[in-house]
């Protein structure tokens, strides 16, 4: 596949001042906010209308679709919604228009971690749009004070035993969720996965080993139940809602379901807390999406305006209010009306403020596979955590050298 030139893309200089209708591409829309946001924009900009192009629901397919279209220099994709973890890859391939000069955006008042997540090599390539962070769901009827550290958490497993339920689960199936959970454990122990250059593996460290070992040991001890090795978000939620799980690491979406659904047996019996760490609050992995302008867009002036609109308080409030999507503006988290509606907001803010992005690297696909494969093996006990991080490092190194 073709990419940019050695340091930039000829297309970066084209159509900077052009205006006109644009297309906004995003994965399958499953919130009630996006349509509203676009409708409002269109009402005010009748000559620069935004058309929504929905991709399929599967993230992998969204990624592949974007690559394919960028690669074909498709001018139909003007603004794209980019998963946080793809930003570096796309930037490095020259697909994304750097947001500088006329196209620069104002990052004041935005969550710092979210802004960083949209940068690559010190350049802003995208505008943060929505965020996300993990939280610890716990059974407030069984556990009075939520654990702050892993040690506390596993100590509470005794309660689970008494209640004949499982203790802790996250997302340990071999998929992207495992990268999230493993990174949280590693980051929480002070480790990291790749260096700031996005290439050099830094994961082969005692800290990373220590982090990973927490999960491995818990799995072997049964504090993480055997079946949790197959859990994605949903299985964990089902288990928690049916009252079979004491602690669950999951995203904010669970909150309203567990407190609202008829099938939920834990209504009013649970609460959320920041993720545990080693000595204090742990490090959540940052989720969310950025909005970026395609280097091949014919109407970049309109595109940047639309990007700015997406960051506006109006749009952000809509995202949270109508779509339950975590905003990237700090002040929105403090809106009392919204806090009433979403009681978990303060916890989420803490979580996101403490969040570490997943590795920012153009080789994200290879890195995440390296993490997943080895973390999975470590948790299952097929290899030691030390060996696992060593292998992770080697695999990341191989990937970043073009293999």
């Amino acid at each position, binding site marked *: *596949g073709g990419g940019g030139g050695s340091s930039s893309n000829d297309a970066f200089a084209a159509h900077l001042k052009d205006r006109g209708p644009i297309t906004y591409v995003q994965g*399958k*829309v*499953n*919130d009630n906010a996006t349509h509203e946001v676009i409708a409002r924009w269109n009402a005010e900009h009748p000559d620069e209308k935004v058309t929504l*192009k*929905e*991709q*399929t*629901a*599967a993230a992998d*397919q969204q990624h*592949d*679709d974007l690559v*394919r279209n960028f*690669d*074909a220099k*498709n001018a139909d994709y003007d603004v794209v919604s980019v998963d946080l973890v793809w930003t570096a890859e796309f930037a490095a391939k020259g697909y994304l228009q750097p947001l500088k000069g006329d196209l620069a955006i104002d990052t004041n008042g935005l969550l710092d971690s979210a802004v960083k997540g949209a940068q690559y090599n010190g350049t802003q390539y995208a505008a943060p749009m929505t965020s996300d962070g993990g939280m610890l769901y716990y059974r407030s009827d069984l556990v009075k004070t939520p654990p702050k550290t892993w040690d506390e958490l596993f100590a509470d497993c005794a309660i689970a035993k008494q209640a004949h339920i499982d203790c802790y689960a996250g997302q340990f199936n071999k998929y992207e969720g495992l990268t999230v959970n493993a990174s949280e454990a590693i980051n929480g122990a002070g480790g990291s996965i790749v260096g700031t250059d996005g290439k050099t593996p830094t994961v082969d460290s005692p800290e990373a080993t220590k982090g990973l070992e927490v999960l491995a040991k818990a799995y072997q001890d049964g504090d993480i139940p055997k079946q949790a090795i197959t859990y*994605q*978000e*949903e299985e964990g*939620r*089902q288990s928690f809602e*049916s009252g079979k799980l004491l602690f669950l690491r999951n*995203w904010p*979406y669970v909150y*309203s*379901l567990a407190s609202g*659904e*008829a*099938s*939920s047996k834990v209504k009013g019996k649970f609460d959320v807390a920041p993720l545990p760490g080693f000595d204090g609050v742990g490090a959540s992995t940052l989720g969310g999406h950025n909005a970026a302008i395609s280097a091949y867009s014919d109407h970049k002036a309109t595109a940047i305006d639309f990007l700015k609109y997406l960051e506006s308080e109006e749009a952000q409030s809509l995202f949270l209010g109508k779509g*339950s999507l975590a905003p990237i503006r700090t002040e929105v988290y403090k809106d009392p009306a919204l806090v009433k509606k979403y009681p978990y907001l303060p916890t989420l803010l803490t979580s996101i403020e403490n969040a570490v992005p997943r590795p920012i690297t153009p080789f994200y696909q290879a890195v995440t596979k390296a993490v997943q494969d080895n973390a999975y093996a470590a948790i299952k006990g097929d290899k030691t955590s030390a060996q696992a991080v060593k292998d992770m490092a080697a695999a990341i190194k191989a990937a970043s050298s073009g293999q």
Partner: protein
Amino acid sequence: MTTTSRWRSARTYLGVALIVVWGLAPFYWMVVTAFRDLQFTFDPTPWPTHVTLDNFRTVFDTSRNHFGRSLLNSVFIGGVVTAIGLVVGVFTAYAMARLRFPGKNAILAVILAASMFPGVALVTPLFQLFRNIGWYGSYQAMIIPDISFVLPLTIYTLTAFFREMPWELEEAARIDGATKRQAFTKIMLPLAAPGVVTTAILAFIAAWNEFLIASQLSNDKSQPVTVAIASFNGTQPHVEPYTAVMAAGTVVTIPLILMVLAFQRRIVDGLTAGGVKG
């Protein structure tokens, strides 16, 4: 009825029962789930509980997806692919089974080889090709690749069937004043019906099930059901709308069952008995 034949029919019915359970049990589970409230997706009660039609409403909710349209798209694409695949397949299979010409084995090998390249690797070049000629999102962008996947299958199966036919009958028809084509279409093709209809059904379903190409080359207007199902979403991120997917699966399966029932007489009858001595 005699004891042996009674025993034989008992054995047949036992076999039939097993087959039916085999085919229907998982399908039953799909249907049960399709009628179940999303919140009770994982409820393992083996009979219908929390019955609701919501899932079907979700499936056909035009504000969320274009399932109805996708269904028609699938029928259209599948129909065209099957028709073309069958016609071209019948041509080729006839040549393979009945004519002698040089390079036959090589051609067969090429046709077979065509179905050996991993589909996942074809998607990107095809996307680029079709984008360049402006076919992206068009029906032909799905139909033509589907035909190429279906063709080896139709050619090979039809060739196998054609070789076993009593071709004396074609001769009789030609004596009766039929052209080669008439002899083939009026006599041999009806006789080959079990094989042809079977091939058609297999081909149709293959096209009907195709996902990979369609997911990349279709747009909202041309997307088939497989893609539509894959893009079903709950109201919440991460929540897999299993029940809606199962409902869609149920809906998708029904036209095919009807089709099979409509054609089944053709599949059932062994037609060649009594025609020739040999």
